[in-house]
């Protein structure tokens, strides 16, 4: 490994870092024939954390940052005066294997600027995945970017070798895309998503009857939206996410707070703070939609289109729906207990399990680490020396905020504990 590789790595890792996905979980790929790596069983491992607190799980690089397009929000846009570089296929393979063997990473996340055309680029991404799988017997995680406009044939091959595929919509609405990336066409992005959705659905159906079916993108597909570069509100964004989850059967939607990288006057100026709290609130809302049974419409609405910045969306929802509380932990459904602010999925499960043995009191909840400063406002438990029944939503909010104020830092990140 020489200085050339080192320089390429610097350039091409730097250019890839705005893609925020770091997930390496959810695959079913197992080690076979005493090969290298295992992506099954997966909660995904963060092998390191950057100094901004984000998970480093995959070797996340671009194959190249040369690009024929000029999307205003992107560092690799053709008009940007930056150093350009391109890895060879073998260089990426060797880096991946070398890092993986040392337990630095869970696998590879490979994206690319578009050189020549979509198929030419996609072909190379696929070739790298294929080499890793077939020549190196590699069973670690591979996430490939599906290049908009690539042929179905290539997408099919990509699905064979990769664990996850993603097409980033980048802009939450078609208007914004037109404004910032006029050469791009939203349909070109939706088409591969649709293809992948259909191929994954078909794979899952066939898998039930045929046991030796080769894997097809077992960790599904995901996408990413840039937040804060354009004027969309949270309602628009979350409705878009809902669409991706329901209609495209996405595994994940990522939100990337826009990091100003350009003097283009269509975009927030350089030095504008990254909207990290907003990004975090969107992740919380997204989490509530995926694991807590909330719909986008319960969290935001056309007439209140923004998530609260000072409280999390679950608390916000509870305060708007005080008529559903207090909840009796000894009787209520798991689904409702999960909706109590301060009680997560795991705590709810614990409650359901423990209440089979004895009637739970406030002290039990306390010992179980559940009776925090927020849950108490929403639970029907006799709390010693406490009379909080008649508070208004505003009063509850104030009390909770004053308690947690010291914990509240402006520096938010998606990987902060969510609730």
């Amino acid at each position, binding site marked *: 490994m020489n200085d050339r590789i080192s320089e390429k790595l*610097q350039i091409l890792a730097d250019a890839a870092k705005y893609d925020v996905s770091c997930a390496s979980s959810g695959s079913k790929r197992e*080690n076979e024939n005493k090969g290298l790596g295992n992506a099954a069983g997966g909660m995904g491992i963060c092998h390191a954390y*950057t100094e*901004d*607190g984000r*998970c*480093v799980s995959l070797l996340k690089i671009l194959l190249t940052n040369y690009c024929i397009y000029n999307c205003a929000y992107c560092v690799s846009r053709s008009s940007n005066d930056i150093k350009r570089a391109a890895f060879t296929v073998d260089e990426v393979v060797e880096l991946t294997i070398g*890092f993986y*063997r040392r337990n630095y990473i869970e696998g590879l996340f490979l994206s690319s600027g578009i050189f020549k055309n979509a198929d030419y680029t996609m072909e190379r991404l696929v070739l790298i995945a294929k080499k890793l799988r077939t020549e190196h017997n590699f069973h670690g995680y591979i996430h490939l970017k599906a290049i908009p406009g690539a042929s179905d044939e290539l997408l099919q091959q990509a699905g064979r070798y990769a664990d996850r595929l993603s097409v980033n919509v980048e802009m939450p609405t078609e208007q914004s895309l037109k404004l910032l990336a006029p050469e791009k066409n939203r349909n070109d992005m939706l088409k591969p998503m649709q293809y992948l959705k259909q191929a994954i659905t078909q794979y899952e159906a066939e898998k039930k009857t045929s046991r030796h079916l080769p894997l097809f993108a077992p960790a599904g597909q995901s996408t990413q939206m840039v937040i804060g570069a354009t004027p969309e509100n949270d309602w628009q964004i979350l409705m878009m996410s809902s669409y991706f989850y329901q209609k495209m059967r996405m595994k994940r939607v990522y939100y990337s707070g826009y990091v100003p990288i350009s003097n283009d006057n269509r975009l927030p100026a350089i030095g504008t703070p990254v909207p990290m709290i907003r990004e975090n609130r969107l992740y919380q809302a997204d989490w509530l939609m995926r694991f807590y049974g909330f719909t986008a419409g319960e969290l935001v609405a056309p007439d209140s289109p923004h998530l609260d910045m000072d409280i999390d969306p679950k608390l916000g929802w509870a305060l708007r729906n005080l008529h559903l509380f207090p909840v009796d932990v000894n009787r209520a459904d798991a689904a409702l207990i999960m909706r109590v602010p301060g009680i997560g999925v795991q705590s709810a499960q614990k409650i359901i399990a423990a209440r089979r043995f004895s009637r739970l009191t406030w002290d039990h909840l306390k010992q*179980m680490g559940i009776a925090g400063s927020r849950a108490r406002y929403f639970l029907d438990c006799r709390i010693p020396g406490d009379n909080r029944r008649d508070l208004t939503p505003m009063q509850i909010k104030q009390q909770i905020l004053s308690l947690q104020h010291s914990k509240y830092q402006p520096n938010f990140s998606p990987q902060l504990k969510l609730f």
Partner: protein
Amino acid sequence: MTTLLFDGSFPGLLTAIFEVYEYKLNDVRLATADSNPVLFGEQREVVTDASKAKRVWQGIGNCISGEARHQLYQAYLSELDTMPQTLLAYFQYAFFKQTNVHEDFSHPAVLTVHQTVRKVYREKHRMEAFVRFSETTDGLFYAVVEPDFDVLPLIAEHFEKRYADQRWVIYDCRRKYGIFYDLSSVQVVEMNFSPDMLQGKDASAAWNEKEAGFQHLWQQYFNSVNIASRKNTALHIRHMPLRYWKYLPEKQPAGTGMAG
């Protein structure tokens, strides 16, 4: 009060629990032979007995699930001074109830086991994340760790599945043993790492020709993925506590290799 002195091993602990029933002891304190001397009450030495241990282990298996039972072992690996006592209370409660008490969180011993297992599990997970192998000239991948709990028995399977085609060893330099995979199975080994290596001195003499290069590239990668405008040191350290840094090449000053 009776104090049972056992050898500190897990079978030893199970034997002690067996003897609590065998001799119908009340008010028992469990202690390891090397812990503080007992001042009051009777004291008995427990001789570890595999068949007694097995009977207790099977007995608890009749009350709780296999997974729950494995968690008792994980709790034991926490090496907490109070854990033998907690486990005794857990076993007594389970044997008394004769049902699956594992989720009865209103019982203090059950709850403590759970809380401890969570901590042990977190450390296991951290080790799976923070082990860093270096490749030696003879193709062995070695890593040195200093986990808070005795988690090597818990991580062996993970690494065996993952690195099935390379010889590797993970050495716990606090507990002075390692696990070694020889391409067919994982064994516990007492190791003779040179003292220099263990004291965190430069180990690069043993590296193969590519090792320094890969460590350098990894450092480079780690620095490149950072987004300066999002810097959040508190969060960084919460996720990667300082005590692990010694063995992470990405946290070494540029141009230097890793300790151990």
